[in-house]
């Protein structure tokens, strides 16, 4: 399905961080790990920002199945 993104390690890692953050708030050690990774390479930061933006956009797309009623 997806186009080949396999070579883009920064992107894959960025997505992994986004998924981890969605699962639960990062603990201090993980936060530091993320910060270190972001500072390692501008490409990492760029990938992370791209993934964050995409994450935001996907939250604005209505669900396909029957939505739960609000409140």
């Amino acid at each position: 399905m997806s186009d080949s993104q396999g070579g883009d390690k920064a992107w894959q890692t960025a997505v992994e961080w986004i998924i981890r953050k969605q699962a639960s708030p990062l603990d201090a050690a993980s936060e530091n790990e993320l910060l270190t990774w972001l500072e390692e390479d501008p490409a990492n930061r760029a990938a992370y920002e791209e993934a964050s933006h995409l994450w935001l956009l996907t939250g604005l797309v209505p669900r396909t199945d029957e939505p739960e009623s609000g409140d």
Partner: protein
Amino acid sequence: MLPEEQSVDLSTIFVTHRTQLRRAALKILGDSARAEDVVQDAYLKITETEGVLNLKQPLAYLYQVVRNLAIDRHRRAAFEGGLFEPEEEGLQVPGHAGTPEATAISRQHLALVARALSELPERTRRVFELHRLDGHTHCAIASQLSISTSLVNILIHDALDHCRAALRSM
């Protein structure tokens, strides 16, 4: 041309339900200033992108947007807590330049992402929605769909990879 559903005036629905939407944000954030911020942000995004999406359940959609923005804000606040000195009340930098919420939503981007998601295989889309919109854990999704947690992770990556490719192709 536009389906009938799109003619609904989303911003009007937003305004008439603003109090309830704000309450939904407050429930997640536990902070009325942040809740207000999220509601404002949601309103901006909704007016910016009005008409792009085919909404069958406009009010449910508004709740989805507000809840998602609130959850994202909540998680980021926790993260930024480790990045910066604790903020004094009222000294927050408005908009948090550079953070996702501060990024203007392009109508074109949203349309491309909506289309990309609609192109996903049904199972991939389902997994992605359970993760993205419902916040379910990999474990919960795996057991609900009788697949492995590693496959759940792969499918979430697939969904985002596909959306990324769609944005990059324009």
